[in-house]
């Protein structure tokens, strides 16, 4: 097989698996023009689902950004007593099925579990409510910020931070004026990856949310419900909106990657 043959095989595989199906969704979404799509996306149920998704993803991104930077600093700069274990646990969520994540959270934070019951007595409902959904989303997107920031921290070394220290900067000043600017592109990249994962989460959220329509239903759960109830128009319109966001995120990632390289 020559060069043309290889190219043809690669493009063919990508076309039948990825490009043609995605293209067809776009075509089917706009089969009857733009107006029905707009109507389907602006029903109260759809708008509510988008709001829930935005709230859950937003909170998860904030939590994972703070934790991600802190964990990366500890892993690279800190003196952790059990660094290798810490490092391994951070990678664990990649390999855990979203459904298993959901079950795991129910077993700890459900009303019948000791911790969940205690929280419930104090007026905090975790499962079948927003806090549990945020927790599930944090779990599945946990390693993304850490894994982007760690290599950059290793690469920049500590010389500039030490210089700032000697000149009398506090720990926080050193972080804000020296470390943060150095890791900013890697951090931005990690945050965008976290956002993409959070917006698209389905399995873990399906388990912990209880899929209560109009209450805990996110955009991805909305797609499933509409498809199962033969409301193809709403399912396709919402899918197209989510796919458009995904493509936008990809473009941002491509730009950030080239920035990071310079």
């Amino acid at each position, binding site marked *: 097989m020559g060069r043309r043959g290889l190219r043809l095989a690669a493009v063919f*595989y990508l076309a039948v698996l990825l490009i043609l199906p995605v293209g067809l969704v776009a075509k089917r979404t706009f089969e009857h023009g733009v107006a029905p799509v707009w109507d389907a996306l602006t029903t109260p149920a759809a708008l509510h689902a988008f709001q829930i998704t935005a709230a859950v993803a937003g909170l998860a991104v904030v939590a994972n950004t703070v934790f991600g930077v802190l964990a990366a600093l500890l892993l690279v700069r800190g003196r952790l007593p059990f660094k290798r274990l810490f490092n391994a646990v951070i990678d664990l969520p990649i390999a855990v099925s979203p459904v298993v994540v959901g079950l795991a959270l129910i077993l700890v934070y459900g009303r019948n579990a000791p911790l969940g019951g205690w929280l419930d007595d104090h007026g905090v409902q975790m499962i079948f409510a927003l806090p549990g959904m945020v927790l599930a989303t944090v779990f599945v997107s946990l390693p993304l910020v850490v894994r982007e920031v760690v290599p950059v921290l290793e690469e920049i070394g500590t010389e500039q931070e030490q210089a700032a220290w000697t000149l009398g900067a506090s720990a926080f000043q050193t972080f804000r004026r020296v470390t943060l600017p150095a890791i900013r592109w890697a951090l931005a990249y990690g945050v965008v990856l976290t956002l993409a994962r959070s917006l698209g989460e389905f399995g873990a959220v399906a388990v912990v949310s209880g899929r209560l329509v109009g209450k805990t239903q996110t955009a991805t759960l909305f797609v499933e419900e509409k498809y199962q109830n033969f409301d193809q128009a709403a399912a396709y319109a919402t899918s197209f909106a989510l796919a458009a966001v995904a493509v936008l995120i990809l473009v941002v990632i491509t730009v950030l990657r080239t920035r990071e390289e310079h």
Partner: protein
Amino acid sequence: MLGVGTATLFLSLVVLLPLAAIVNRSTDHGWSGFWQNVTAPQAAAALRLTLVAGLIVAAVNVVFGTLIAWVLVRDDFRGKRVIEVLVDLPFALPTIVAGLVLLSLYGPTSPVGIDLAYKQTGVLAALLFVTLPFVVRTVQPVLLEFDREMEEAAACLGASRITVFRRVILPNLMPAILAGASLSFARAISEFGSTVLISGNLPFKTQVSAVQIFGQIQSDNPVGAAAVSTVLLVIALVVLIVLDLVQRWAVRRG
């Protein structure tokens, strides 16, 4: 010190404690109960399908992932940059949307007359879709930094193009290919969202373990769900450890 405490507490509350709860709950009815739950006909069938599908998906990704990486690095044609960006799409696309996307072309209303809905091939297609970028993205950077002089030396010494690929290029790509393959496998055996719509959730036929676990949770059998979950967790953990060993071995070898 405050930082260490906060990070450890966060990690424990979000990851460690819940995963420990799964393992703990799986043996609620003793080891025999655990074994019964895992070997129950429906659970065993789902596990078998999950593992076989995971292996097939990893193998297909080895071939096509390496091929795509090769074409992206060594070839040049119009539209290559678009493909470069599109390869990452399965990572950015919500999994439920991935399932719907495949159903629109390969579902009951397929314009090309291929209906994979409620079939094992449909499950495979969904898993191939979501794992597409793994091997491409691990092999591509290695190929980019690959020393062309080695290939030229081999060619000068009379090696054919196939021999050069098999004896010079492939051994150097092997650690990256294996890393990508194990990541695809780990992702494939845990995948849920993309298989929900296309598999139709038929026990003994298209039901993968993640979907079977979901069913057990819905029908209020947390112990059974936890048992199968534990099996998946252990397999994923073994794969991650093997991946770590492969990478260490590759670093040592240079």
